[in-house]
């Protein structure tokens, strides 16, 4: 409807004007698009080149020989696949914990009636402003006392806690969309609070799983500081720490580093290609309601 209106609106003269400025606008938009993409393009091309090409013969062009061996080197000697698997394990566990905890908490905060739930909600929202770094010393000391440094839990637990506030925030939005009549109907059918939660709320919260999951995934997939400090064992390192360590080892051989960087990036980009709307929505959902 609005499209049709728009087509009718501009007069001929205005249409001409629009075209001139349109070109400028497009030029600007395309320029920024190039600036956004170029480093990634460069990374992927140099991940397939040898040093001679990267360093002078062919700096920005497509590779001449397509050195896939850079990738096998990064995977085998650089242990990229171990880091990869670790990141997946950490992300999956973090997402699972965040989902369970934030579903349950949101249910108590929005569907159950009790005194002080508004205050409790505000309390949880404090987590949005608290910098993750602030708790590093006490967590480090505690983990070290429990002999949990360099285990998956050393990062899974903090990541879950730090994703929790956003999880609750996003879930609050989704849970608010579920009609209260459903609760009452289920209650009349003899369901208790747990029954309503499991039979009515959880099945209807599947869109929230994706949104919270994506947000949490990106948080823990990319996090460096905690992983760097809490994990020193090569077998447990996550991708960011692994990539950082690998770049330290191959400082002078750029091809394998490029391959490692690309390996850490491509899966996210692939997922993004298929789920771009979803991913963007999860970021918007988090911020706009905050």
């Amino acid at each position, binding site marked *: 409807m609005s499209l049709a209106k728009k087509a009718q609106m501009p007069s001929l003269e205005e249409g001409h004007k629009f075209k001139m400025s349109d070109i400028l*606008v497009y030029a600007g*938009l395309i320029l*920024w*698009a190039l600036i*956004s993409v170029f*480093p*990634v393009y*460069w*990374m992927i091309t*140099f991940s397939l080149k040898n040093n001679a090409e*990267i360093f*002078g013969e062919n*700096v*920005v062009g497509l590779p001449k020989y397509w050195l896939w061996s850079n990738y096998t080197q990064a995977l085998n000697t650089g242990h990229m696949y171990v880091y990869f698997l670790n990141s997946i394990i950490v992300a999956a566990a973090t997402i699972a914990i965040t989902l369970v*905890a934030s579903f*349950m*908490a949101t249910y*108590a905060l929005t569907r*159950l009636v009790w005194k002080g739930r508004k205050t*409790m909600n505000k*309390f*949880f929202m404090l987590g949005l402003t*608290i*910098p993750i*770094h*602030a*708790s*590093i*010393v006490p967590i*480090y000391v*505690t983990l070290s006392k429990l002999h949990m440094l360099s285990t998956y839990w050393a990062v899974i*637990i903090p990541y*879950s*806690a*730090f994703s929790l*506030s956003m999880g609750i925030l996003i879930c609050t939005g989704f849970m608010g969309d579920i009609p209260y009549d459903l609760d009452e109907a289920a209650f009349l059918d003899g369901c208790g*609070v747990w029954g309503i*939660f499991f039979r009515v709320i959880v099945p209807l919260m599947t869109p929230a799983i994706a949104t919270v999951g994506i947000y949490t995934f990106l948080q823990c*997939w*990319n996090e*460096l500081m905690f992983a760097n*400090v809490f994990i020193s064992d090569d077998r447990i390192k996550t*991708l*960011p*720490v692994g*990539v*950082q360590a690998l770049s330290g080892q191959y400082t002078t051989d750029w091809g394998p*580093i490029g391959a490692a*960087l690309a390996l*850490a*990036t491509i899966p*996210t*980009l692939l997922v*993004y290609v298929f789920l*771009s709307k979803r991913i*963007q929505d999860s*970021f*918007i959902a988090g*911020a*706009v309601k905050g």
Partner: protein
Amino acid sequence: MKRTIGYKLSIFAFLLPALILFIGVLIAPIIMSAYYSFFNWKVGYPLTDFIGVKNYVELFTSKSIGFMKALGNSLLLALLSVFIQLPLALLLALKLGKKIPGERAFLSVYFMPVLISTVVIGQLWLKIYNPEYGLLNVALRSLGLESWTRIWLGTKETALGACFVPILWQYVGYHMLLMYAGVKGVPPELNEAAMLDGCTESQVNRYIIIPYIKPILRVSVIFAVTGSLKSFDLIYVLTNGGPFHATEVPSTLMISMLFLRNRYGMGSTIAVMLIILCFAFALLISLAFKEEK
């Protein structure tokens, strides 16, 4: 639904996992950090040397720690974010919000850098800035601008700027996305009415759209400022605070206090200052936006 003891217990049970995580990993550690910050505590030694606020005094006065400089750097980053990154994001969002062809493609491309791990971006820009083979210097040389080449991350004058560019670059797309969502939320009737009244595009932007998306701008400003105060990853990868502390920010300072100098007490002091600053700025910005209303 009745308010029985069972009901109350259920409420508690539903909150329990979140409370354990939240209090155990966020709230309790902050209290512990605040407590540690009153001690001269070195790794491996018992926590016995209570020194009151001496850590705070040293933090703000010691030239060799250079906290004020680090704080200044992150505030400068915050300023640049608010006055360069956000306007650029707003400009892109306003243009994309006008239903132009290819809008989704542009949106997706602009947002892409946000998804890439900061370590990857850092390593990538490290290569771009490499003094000998880096893209930047190679490009300058091939353009005949040999004299413009610099050791970007190695000289005091350029390092800070060189660190800021990727940080600003990466998150333009994020703010753009938020603002774009806001622009899309403006009721089309408002736009059309203004257009019919003969408003130009920039007038519509200025008097209709921007006031309408103010809550989102507030969120963006808060994120940009607190994000700048917290910035760590990219600077850690690019320079780790060097050369000569030119690019030090509070987080890198904290990490070096903790894990290079083994001063847990002082590290905790910086952590506490970070929390205070983040909350203070979030509050200030919220107030500033309210005032304007």
